[in-house]
């Protein structure tokens, strides 16, 4: 129980002081000015989606052709406008006092009957402001990129419609001022993700991946929906403001349950173990989708959920411990997958899983970690989007081949892609000075200060990151050419490289958010003031150690991958570890054994019972009853008697159960 000593301490404090640690959400509802336009941030992409998906198909043929041809511009414009508005809002928020940077807007009452009141309310605070910039900013860049990437796709208009739909849902998730609204966005991004993973529906694998993502996400949704129901039952509301105020009054058991249920929800959306299996398959979607949804924004929603629910987690050390454990397992799990995958997108997806593990880890550490979770989330948004788009650019030049074993020496053929990708690479491994260096360093340092074992595992993860990213770089851009004769790698058009350059710049400079502890101070009113914990070693020493471990990983990759010949076909006589990692550490096999097969067996059993079993009982009984069965057989269909028997049996059961329970 002492794993997280600080939170145990916090939970032991009396209520009044609790409030002092975890800020209560109390937005200013009448801020006026530009804040009255908050709803427009969501409304713009909604409008885009409605125009592209709802209106365009019903236009007369000539106009529809025009819509198909230029629809993507509408979609991109909506995302860009939304970004401009987010920027204006951010500046306006900067202009307010540090204490009054929570702004609310009441749109309409969703439903209200007695205690069951849910408003369509928005909450714009320091946390939401950063997310808005990330979603609309990176989102706009990816829209621009997709103009080039999807140029030859006949359904490009629809693709942009889905992208807009996704952005709108994601913004709803972030801006909502209560858990029901958040759930609305949560399901919305799930739906958009489903549509986009399965976008190339002619591929059966894409349709299957879409369904898998949807179903696994629904398992996570059990957690979130139960948490919401429990909140209604406990607090009578799901407003962030009211819940943060009342949380201290709930029993410890309720709080633990809430924390764990929310974590289950977060696991589903953020692909954390044990609900991680869908993310790698989700790479079947078009690459811009992988970059936007499955790297930069949607998959980090779980981290947002934990940070946003800090008023609950601060009171439940049990759930916090669970968050830390899940996060640590995932960050290693994802990293190991990343080492063995030859599909460039799947390798990156493993890395995403691992990096989200880092964010979750930070979020599980309490107020010390929250700002760094968000910090890493932002920098990761930049460099991972950058690398996914880079991977898309590589695929674009390689006839959509995703196997890194068929790449090699692409640094000359695609200089811009290479250079921008390299920036992302240096950022993710934590090369000193790059954005990822600052954010990951802080997380590992906080983890070490909190618990030595967790800290060391996070450190190990950093080393593995160095290994698999270097392997990816070497296999893709260096070494011998391994591509087919008919492949002519070429640089992508400007519309694709410009977003890459912008994202590369952000990957390099993203660390600036930490200048003067800006992001920590900025988020303090949301996440609470952290108690200072001395790390076991001076910070500078820890930084040096992390860098050394990463260097070891890089060197290992250099000797194991860079110095050797890379076969075009993946060798089969590999160690058990490699085989396990290639098979996603048997994630699917585990799901299959634990959930799918028993489930299918149960359904099969029920079906058999329904069709045969009941009838069989009659057959058996009839031989005993003799004449009765002949009488019953005269009924034109053999099944009615079995239905009637089941009715009789049910009636007996009901009556006997009633008697047994009440008279027994």
């Amino acid at each position, binding site marked *: 129980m002492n794993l997280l000593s600080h939170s145990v301490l916090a939970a032991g404090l009396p209520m009044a002081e609790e409030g002092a640690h975890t800020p209560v959400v109390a937005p200013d509802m009448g801020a006026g000015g530009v804040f009255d336009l908050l709803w427009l941030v969501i409304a713009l992409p909604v409008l885009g989606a409605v125009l592209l998906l709802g209106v365009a198909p019903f236009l007369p043929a000539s106009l529809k052709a025009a819509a198909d041809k230029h629809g993507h511009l509408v979609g991109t414009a909506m995302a860009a406008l939304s970004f401009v508005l987010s920027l204006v809002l951010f500046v306006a928020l900067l202009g307010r006092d540090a204490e009054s940077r929570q702004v609310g807007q009441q749109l309409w009452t969703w439903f209200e009957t007695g205690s069951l009141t849910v408003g369509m309310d928005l909450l714009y605070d320091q946390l939401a402001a950063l997310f808005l910039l990330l979603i609309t900013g990176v989102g706009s860049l990816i829209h621009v990129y997709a103009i080039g990437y999807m140029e030859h796709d006949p359904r490009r208009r629809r693709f942009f419609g889905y992208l807009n739909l996704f952005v709108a849902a994601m913004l709803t998730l972030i801006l909502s001022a209560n858990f029901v609204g958040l759930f609305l966005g949560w399901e919305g991004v799930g739906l958009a993700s489903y549509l986009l993973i399965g976008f190339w529906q002619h591929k059966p694998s894409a349709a299957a991946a879409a369904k898998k993502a949807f179903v696994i996400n629904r398992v996570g949704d059990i957690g979130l929906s139960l948490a919401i129901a429990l909140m209604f039952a406990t607090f009578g509301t799901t407003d962030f403001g009211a819940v943060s105020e009342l949380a201290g009054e709930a029993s410890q058991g309720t709080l633990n349950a809430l924390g764990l249920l929310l974590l289950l929800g977060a696991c589903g959306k953020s692909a954390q173990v044990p609900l991680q299996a869908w993310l790698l398959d989700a790479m079947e979607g078009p690459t811009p989708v992988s970059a936007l949804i499955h790297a930069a924004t949607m998959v980090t929603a779980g981290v947002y959920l934990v940070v946003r629910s800090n008023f609950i987690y601060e009171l439940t050390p049990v759930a916090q411990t669970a968050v830390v454990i899940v996060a640590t397992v995932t960050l290693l799990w994802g990293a190991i997958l990343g080492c063995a995958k030859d599909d460039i997108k799947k390798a990156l997806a493993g890395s995403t899983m691992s990096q989200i593990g880092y964010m979750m880890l930070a979020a599980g550490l309490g107020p010390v970690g929250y700002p760094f979770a968000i910090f890493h989330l932002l920098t990761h948004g930049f460099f991972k989007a950058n690398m996914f788009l880079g991977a898309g650019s590589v695929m674009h030049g390689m006839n959509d081949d995703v196997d890194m074993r068929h790449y090699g020496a692409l640094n000359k053929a695609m200089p811009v892609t290479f250079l921008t990708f390299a920036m992302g690479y240096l950022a993710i491994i934590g090369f000193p000075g790059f954005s990822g260096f600052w954010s990951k360093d802080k997380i590992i340092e906080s983890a070490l200060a909190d618990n030595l074992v967790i800290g060391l595992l996070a450190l190990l993860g950093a080393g593995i990151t160095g290994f698999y990213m270097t392997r990816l770089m070497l296999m893709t851009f260096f070494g011998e050419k391994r591509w087919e004769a008919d492949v002519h790698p070429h640089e992508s058009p400007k519309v694709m490289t410009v977003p890459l350059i912008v994202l590369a710049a952000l990957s390099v400079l993203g660390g600036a958010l930490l200048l003067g502890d800006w992001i920590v101070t900025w988020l303090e009113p949301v996440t609470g003031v952290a108690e200072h914990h001395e790390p076991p070693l001076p910070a500078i020493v820890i930084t040096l150690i992390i860098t050394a471990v990463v260097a070891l990983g890089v060197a290992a990759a250099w000797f194991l991958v860079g110095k050797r010949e890379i076969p075009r076909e993946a060798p089969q006589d590999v160690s058990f570890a490699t085989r396990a990692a290639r098979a996603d550490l048997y994630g699917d096999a585990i799901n299959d054994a634990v959930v799918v097969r028993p489930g299918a067996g149960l359904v099969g059993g029920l079906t058999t019972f329904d069709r045969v079993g009941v009838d069989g009982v009659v057959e058996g009984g009839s031989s005993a009853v003799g004449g009765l069965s002949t009488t019953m057989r005269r009924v034109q269909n053999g099944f009615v008697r079995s239905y009637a028997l089941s009715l009789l049996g049910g009636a007996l059961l009901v009556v006997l*159960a009633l008697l047994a329970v009440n008279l027994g």
Partner: protein
Amino acid sequence: MTEFVKPSIEYFELWPLLVVFGVACLGVVVEAFLPRSVRYTTQVVLALGGLVLALVGVVLVAQDVQTYDDGAARGVLAVGGTIAVDGPSLFIWGLVLALAIAGVLLFAERHLDGGVSAFAGQAAAVPGTDAETASIAANREHTEVYPLMMFAVFGMMLFPAANDLLTMFVGLEILSLPLYLLSGLARRRRLLSQEAALKYFLLGAFSSGFFLYGAALLYGFAGSLDFASINEAVRNDVGNQALLLIGTGLLSVGLLFKVGAVPFQAWTPDVYQGAPTPVTAFMAAGTKVAAFGAIMRLFYVALGADRWSWQPMLWIIAVLSMFVGAALAITQTDIKRLLAYSSVAHTGFILTGVIGLQAADQLAVGEISSVQAVLFYLATYGFATIGAFAVVSLVRDGGGETTAIDRWAGLGKESPVVAAVFAFFLLAMAGIPLTSGFVGKLAVFSVALAAGAWPVVVAAVLASIVAAYLYVRVIKVMYFDAPVGDGPSVAYPSVLTATTIAVGAAITLVLGVLPGPVLDLAAVAGEFIR
């Protein structure tokens, strides 16, 4: 034995009921005396007019009934205390009438099958004989379906308003008998339809027997059939406890059979599949609404004081219904059977709301009551169901409706609008936010949680995941799978079916986005009167 007193009949409060009954009788007269050529139009106009008039009546009565307990309940006991015209009754009447209007529109649809309705030309003609061929050649159709339906509607209104066991039984039979008959009248696949009707009739009669026996036992316990006296007897703990329990059990069998709860669900898929689709649509929505009204009245008004003994039973039945319904739906290959099993699962969800009953003094001020949650859920379920079955009637191939799910592959391409609307109804049934199903589920789960039934709620959430899987499976088939052969074709409906679908979809959306007014209405309906 008390002396017989002639009951006074409250004509004002009862006139919606009487209008429907009158129109039904008038329909029979029309069949007897008007020439065949004008019957269709006359019957449709008569039925629609009657239903609309009755609906207006419901609104007028609702505005004018007397209130009790500071507005916590409203209504009057009519006809010597045998019919309770109270808030929940009026809500259910309104709902049944609205669904019946949609039902008449679907019954009257003649565009889909080359100018004839979905009903057999001459039900008495044995399938495959010359008589049948002749009736088809003559383009005959049964216009008796409208009066039959009106009788069923009358039963659906009487059933939930019945305030004693005998009236409830009469309501049950009036609602059931026309439906047995209607189920057997399909124009195509007649043997399947007749088989379904016979099964429905036999099993329905069997379950009615249970109901009647239960009523007799309760009479033995309380010495009275009316709910207030039974309640009094339960409260004072007089009489034989075993009679009460066995009576309760047998009565529940009769009622749970009508809503298709497990283990009394066996008839549902066969009947839903065999009956003509318009009948399935009307029956699936209307019967469930009416029967849940009756279940709540029996359990809350008559047996409310004894709830500790029946709640555990309903817990188990709710959980079983949700899981068995959802699990069996997964393996179905026919869309109507799939929707039937899904309706079994929905029965479980609604029962989750029913067990959320708490004594009035335990409810916080303004807290949502279980009656309110269940009424709201019924509204969401009714419109989504009738809309979904209406869509099913549109998808056809050479042999009439094509209900095999794998034949629906490629519907998303063939007819994006139809596929999108159907997907929307499925998402509503799965309970995705911004559809009515989400708010409905939230409401019933909340009341069940508040009443301490958290194991049921956990099971319900788990079951809704299983259910979500099966709905997504259908969506996947429609959008992602390659069409079989020429793929499905979508018949262009007349304005009647189109209106039904559009209104069903609109209500499903509105109840999801702005459920406030209807939730309020359910709250204003208040409690049952005794």
